[in-house]
């Protein structure tokens, strides 16, 4: 069954997905290091452990389709094909960054490239998604949007209102809940369950699905179906990718709300290693080939780091630019 799915994907595409997952892992590790070394001010939310959710989902898109991310958005950016140099430069707050250093980790966007941005407000992207979808639909554009959010965002009023409007206007949007089990320290199980989250689809009147979010093939299959449905004019869907973040919520996290054992169990289900094992078992790749992909990804990130560190700071004179459009 898994093996059949493996074979539906070309070697080139599989290699690209592996590269994106490794690049994400490498980006996050570098981000953490840069932060620890005091090169980065502020905070960040690392997506280590959630790579299959981002890459599996976004791999179903055409290059000119759209995504809307959230605060834990580095992996989404990368999966959408971000230029790693510009992304790292933004993380470093540099003029060369995607947002000229104005946005930083929580606001990386590339509107021209179809990445409509991360968001500092939990649930903040959901109402936007309805409008993006409606805009596309209204002008007969065939593009679709993936709108990502966390289990925490699912408890916000914004979620409820957005689901209702999305169904009412039948927008071409796939809503993807990256259920990593916690909103900061608040366990999703205290107010819902993965099944209940998926069940909301029914409450609102759209197709719903639940995936093993650490299984790239599972994610990809569910999202592909929803993307096809949206592109064919069938309207929105809701997908719950069950996954886990390995790191703390952000740098202030003392991890008091979960056990080391739980973290280790989920690390056993490392989404990258799982996909790697599958493709090697299937004979699509040798271990050496994948080592090369991994190494390449880490090298790219190292180049991005250098690029970012060597880039210019934005000038203080330019500070008021960009508030208003002419």
């Amino acid at each position, binding site marked *: 069954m898994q093996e059949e799915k493996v074979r539906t994907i070309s070697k080139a595409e599989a290699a690209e997905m592996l590269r994106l997952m490794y690049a994400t892992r490498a980006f996050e590790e570098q981000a953490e290091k840069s932060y620890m070394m005091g090169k980065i001010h502020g905070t960040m939310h690392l997506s280590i452990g959630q790579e299959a959710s981002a890459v599996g989902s976004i791999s179903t898109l055409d290059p000119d389709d*759209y995504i809307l991310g959230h605060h834990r958005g580095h992996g989404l950016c990368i999966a959408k094909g971000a230029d790693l140099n510009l992304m790292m430069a933004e993380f470093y707050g540099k003029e060369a*960054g*995607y*947002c*000229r*250093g*104005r*946005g930083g980790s929580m*606001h990386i*966007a*590339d*509107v*021209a490239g179809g990445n*409509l*941005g991360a*968001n*500092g*407000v939990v649930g*903040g992207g*959901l*109402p*936007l*998604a*309805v*409008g*993006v*979808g*409606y*805009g*596309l639909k*209204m*002008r007969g554009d065939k593009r679709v949007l993936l709108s990502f959010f966390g289990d925490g965002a699912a408890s916000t*009023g*914004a979620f409820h*209102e*957005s689901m*209702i*409007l999305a169904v*009412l*206007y039948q927008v071409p949007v796939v809503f993807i809940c990256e259920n990593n089990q916690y909103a900061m320290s608040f366990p999703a199980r205290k107010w819902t369950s993965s099944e209940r989250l998926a069940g909301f689809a029914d409450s609102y009147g759209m197709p719903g699905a639940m995936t093993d979010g650490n299984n790239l093939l599972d994610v990809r299959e569910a999202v592909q179906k929803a993307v096809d449905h949206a592109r064919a004019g069938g309207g929105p869907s809701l997908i719950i990718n069950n996954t886990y973040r390995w790191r703390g919520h952000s740098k202030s996290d003392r991890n008091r709300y979960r056990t080391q054992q739980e973290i280790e169990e989920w690390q056993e289900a490392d989404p990258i290693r799982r996909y790697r094992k599958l493709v090697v078992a299937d004979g699509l790749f040798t271990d050496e080939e994948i080592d090369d992909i991994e190494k390449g990804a880490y090298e790219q990130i190292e180049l991005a780091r250098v690029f970012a560190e060597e880039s210019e700071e934005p000038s203080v004179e330019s500070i008021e*630019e*960009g*508030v*208003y*459009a*002419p």
Partner: protein
Amino acid sequence: MREITYLEAVREAMTQEMERDEKVFLIGEDVGQYGGAFGASFGMLEKFGPDRILDTPITELGLTGAATGAALVGMRPIAEIMFMDFLTLASEQLVNQAAKLRFMFGGRATVPMVLRTPAGSGTGAAEHHSQSLENWFAHIPGLKVVMPSTPYDAKGLLISSIRDNNAVVFVEHKLLYKTKGPVPEEPYAIPLGQADVKREGKDLTIVATSVMVSRALEAAKTLAEEGIDVEIVDPRTIRPLDAEPIIQSVIKTGRVLIVHEAVKMGGYGGELAATIAESRAFGYLDAPIVRLAGRDIPIPYNRTLELSAVPQVPDIIAKAREIVQGKV
């Protein structure tokens, strides 16, 4: 010139812009068949169909965000929030998203949208349907805030707001909807950020917004009979503020009274007073800068209390008199 109401002017501006530009659409609660709670979009569903006149369930946050998202991908939505009081529900999307997306993305996005909403008291609708919160949005970089006081301004400013490439909060006043005035039939644009001198005078400058402009004009008639010649400046756009005509007027008259309906404390009158006090007009002032504004209470239901909660014509007359007579 043909006379129409402020409400009709709003509708005409929306209609003409929708005819001109197919990217413009209207979204809000009951804006379709019902025609909007005050009738602003009455008949527009029949004209433009349900794809461009979007009725929503009660979802202030959702619909404001939907407008923002559509703007982000090139549409030009007009969102209607039925009462300004309910912007308290929508302000996350307006303030954090619509206003900031462009700056946050390094200037690489545009959010051309209008959020229309009726403000103000006087209809007996009580505490939850009568607030004037314009200064909340005047405080937010990235937004523009427009407050037309006449049918003519309503049409011209709404057309400019729709054509503007930023998020514009367009504050209508319920009591103005039925007021009539001359309005050209063809589309025309009044630039945002341009104050208007509604009456020239030499003894006292009154800076008034929205419904207070007509009350000030009314007061000016009585004051004129007493020999007090009042100049009335209407900022029309409160963000950005066109301060120069105000400053010039104060330099000329040496006295200023600021009048708005919103609660005084923390209101836009403070901005106006401070702008004058830190300008070159400061040296020309012959009297303290006086604000006349809403009382420090929520808007009550009872008719007499409601009227007494915000400045009325006699209050303006009395305060103007005091200033000119050196009693403040």
